[in-house]
């Protein structure tokens, strides 16, 4: 599916991973995709920012909602501890990998996509197909995130008093065939 993503959509997904890493969450959920989209150019970011979804405010809200839900923000410490319990020292592997391959080549734990984030991306593909667009752009990704209502992104938008239907309309108006 990623091979059909536009350059901007790919950048948004990378920004989503960076958001998860910087908040020390051990997963990439719809809320991180939303943050990635807000920070990236293209119809999704434009529509979100125009409706007052500011990066800083959205980020604060995400941090607060996940903390309230008891989601760990420990950079995957539990996984490192689990490996330590069977005698594997991740810090040592990290040090050697950085020395040999350069920093960033090895990353543990690398946050995986949640089921809902995967579904949102599947829905993005669906909306591209429905609109007759060849490639998946940031606008389709936002439509996918908005359609996956049960995701935390939905909670973040509700906490910010944003209406999903309004955002949907706004992004559709900005989308051109890609």
């Amino acid at each position, binding site marked *: 599916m*990623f*091979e059909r*993503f536009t350059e901007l959509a*790919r950048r948004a997904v990378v920004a989503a991973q960076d958001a998860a890493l910087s908040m020390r969450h051990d997963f990439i959920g719809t809320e991180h995709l939303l943050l990635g989209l807000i920070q990236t150019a293209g119809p999704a970011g434009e529509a979100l920012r125009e409706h007052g979804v500011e990066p800083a405010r959205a980020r604060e809200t995400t941090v607060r909602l996940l903390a309230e839900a008891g989601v760990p923000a420990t950079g995957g*410490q*539990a*996984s*490192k*501890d*689990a*490996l*330590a*319990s*069977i005698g*594997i020292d*991740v810090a040592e*592997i990290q040090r050697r*990998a950085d020395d040999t*391959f350069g920093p960033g*080549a*090895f*990353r*543990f*734990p*690398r946050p*995986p996509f949640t089921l809902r984030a995967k579904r949102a991306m599947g829905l993005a593909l669906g909306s591209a197909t429905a609109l007759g667009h060849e490639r998946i752009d940031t606008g389709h990704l936002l439509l996918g995130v908005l359609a996956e209502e049960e995701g935390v992104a939905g909670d973040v938008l509700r906490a910010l008093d944003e209406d999903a239907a309004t955002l949907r309309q706004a992004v559709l108006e900005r989308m051109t065939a890609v």
Partner: protein
Amino acid sequence: MSAEESPAADLVDQVTSKDPAVGLQAVVALRRLLEELERLHVDNARDQGWTWQSIATALHVSRQSVHEKHATRRKTTGKEK
């Protein structure tokens, strides 16, 4: 740092735990470590000019499965054309 946040306390808990959840968590973490190491070494092999077939042979898997798993990712992240 409170007692429950101490890594040493966590470690003792895990080593002595008969709780299946703890052992299974280690299995999941190990699987994730394996995936990350595979990614690291496949990237290194490709950067050194290895063919997908030689990588597949070294990993004891089919060329198709290694290609499916890593080629798109490398293209997407700009590591390969």
